[in-house]
């Protein structure tokens, strides 16, 4: 089981958290201006990288707050976690 470092509560076991998908996908400011292609991309297309991935987690059985994490999807190693709204930190594999 993974240990996840909630920015508010500290390290807790994975089962206290819910996964929230890829991070930093902003909802378009003016959805009706988008083409169908662009809207489908926003809704469904994901980077799905083999390596460093910025993703959302929610400490659903803890403080209940959303935050972001950077994780290596090859090793599942958490590089860092940070609060929602903060910019994505630079991170490299093995960092």
């Amino acid at each position, binding site marked *: 089981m993974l240990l996840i470092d909630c920015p508010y509560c500290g390290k807790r076991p994975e089962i206290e958290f819910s*996964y929230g998908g890829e991070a930093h996908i902003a909802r378009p400011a003016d959805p009706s201006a988008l083409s169908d292609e662009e809207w489908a*991309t926003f809704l*469904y297309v*994901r980077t799905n990288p083999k390596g460093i991935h910025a*993703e959302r987690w929610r400490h659903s059985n803890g403080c209940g707050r959303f935050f972001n994490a950077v994780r290596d999807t090859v090793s*599942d190693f958490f590089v860092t976690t940070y609060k929602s709204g903060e910019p994505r930190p630079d991170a490299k594999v093995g960092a």
Partner: protein
Amino acid sequence: MQTYSALSLLRRAFGGHSSWQPHWRTPEPKPEYDAVIVGAGGHGLGTAYYLAKEHGMRNIAVIERGWLGGGNTGRNTTIIRSNYLFDESAGLYEHSVKLWESLSRELNYNVMYSPRGVMMLAHTIHDIQVFKRHVHANRANGVDNEWLTAEQAKEFCPPLNISPTLRYPVLGAALQRRGGTARHDAVAWGFARGADAMGVDIIQNCEVTGIRRAPNGAVTGVDTSRGFIGAKKVGVVAAGHTSVVMAMAGLRLPLESFPLQALVSEPVKPAFPCVVMSNTVHAYISQSDKGELVIGAGTDAYVSYSQRGGLHIPAHTLDAICELFPMFRRMRMLRNWGGIVDTTPDRSPIIAKTPVPGLYVNCGWGTGGFKATPGSAHVFAHTIARDEPHPINAPFTIERFRDGVMIDEAAAAAVAH
């Protein structure tokens, strides 16, 4: 190709079984092929087989990063069924089951297809309604599926606990008798042997590192760890790594890759006659011919390529197994592993042309691709050879997400995702 028969077995037995040849060659890659398939799992090898067999394309190669059948083909729980709700899915999976029924003869290779019945348990009123809807929809589509009471379910599968005091009591079940299992490795080996015999080059330990394109955008070949291999057509059948391979052509797909875990017990005498699945308590189980109980757990929640996951996922499944089948409570589990499954938002596959001319993709099988192996390969070969989809896979496009014509088995599938 050496063919198998009772006579050939007997004859070679007298020779001490010393005259058997390898199933397939280990060829060096040629500079160019008419078509290259990326990924030598069941779907990819099957695609090559049907391209050669039905479309006369013999100058083709299957390129594999590891060894053939070493990915999800060798990691799944081998369940075969076609009792999907929607017409499009029923068409695709039923096409596959029909091919399963004659596959051993077709390949002259025993894939050990065993239609022992797949039974899906209903534990709530909602389950009953959903499964009865499945039964009726399936029968309207010519797919066998029938409703059983709890007592009939127990009769079909005696180890089942139908006590009303269970936390989630068994209220009934839907049974597809033609569903069952097959030997997953044999499927890969059989297709590989058949394709190789028709001249298909199967190139293992050869990782695709790039997809080259002409100035007009069309595919010209693939860069690999063993050099450039030219190809007019490239079919990507890379399962969990599809996003990685397609990114080489600059394409992003509606896919996410998750670990899916499974486990097997110590081998015991035949004790379990069929496949039982439970969506609500999330367990599925069958017994292999070796005697191991084969148990499928769920996916981990997060994107990963690690081929492993959290122990709480299989533990949760074992809770359900022990409640439904009390006689297994003291069984010991021997092995637990993960495979990386590529899932689409609607949990239906993509078998389609891509915006890049000459590039085709067969992906998104999520947690249930094994059952579709021959059908998927058959229609994908058609798509590559004719540059247009077979009527069966025509709805399974990438564009369905843009156009809102999804095949939403995510909510309708008989197993929890």
